């Protein structure tokens, strides 16, 4: 199920009927304000979603022990 190479997106002006189009600066500014430091131990949270929620590492450790 290999996917074709990722094509370059087209440049386009701001402002469309839905949320497509360029991301407005005030939305970026709002997102920047929203971000916080979630504290020690959260450095790899984004890449450990499955590990934390579904215990992938624990399953692997159990498999390795057999």
């Amino acid at each position, binding site marked *: 199920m290999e996917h074709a190479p990722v094509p370059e997106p087209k440049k386009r002006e701001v402002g469309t009927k839905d949320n497509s189009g*360029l991301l407005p600066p005030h939305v970026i500014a709002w997102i920047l304000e929203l971000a916080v430091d979630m504290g020690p131990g*959260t*450095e790899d949270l984004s890449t450990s*979603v499955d590990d934390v929620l579904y215990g992938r590492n624990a399953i692997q450790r159990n498999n390795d022990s057999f």
Partner: protein
Amino acid sequence: MIVFDSSFLIALLNKRDSYYHSALRFLDDMATFDYGSRVTIDYVLDEVLTLIWSSTLDKNLVKQAYDLICATPEFLRCYRVEVEILQQAWDTWLKIASPNRPLSFTDACILAFAKREENENNTMVYIATFDNDFRGIAATVP
């Protein structure tokens, strides 16, 4: 269209995350290049809220994540996974998930949703993610 995965949204919300700056750079990219509609699915909402809650036990952080995903339509629209998508996701998961590529069912739902959008709307669909499980089977960004 661009579909946001949990990993990207979590990186965007946590300044301490190792991919925070990568996520910010991609925000700038979206201010320059048009990727089409920005969307996600309810399964991703569940993952993000549950992960932040279980990792921080801070209700304010969970609320901010909810606001980003559900209350900021200029940035993102959240779609429910319909029955047809569930069936496609199940078929996708059966085909792809393995010990070497431990795809979650949520990831399979994202792939099925993206495939449906590609087919029905004849549009290019990107997946915004830092999850390696998507590599090689979808058009991923950043």
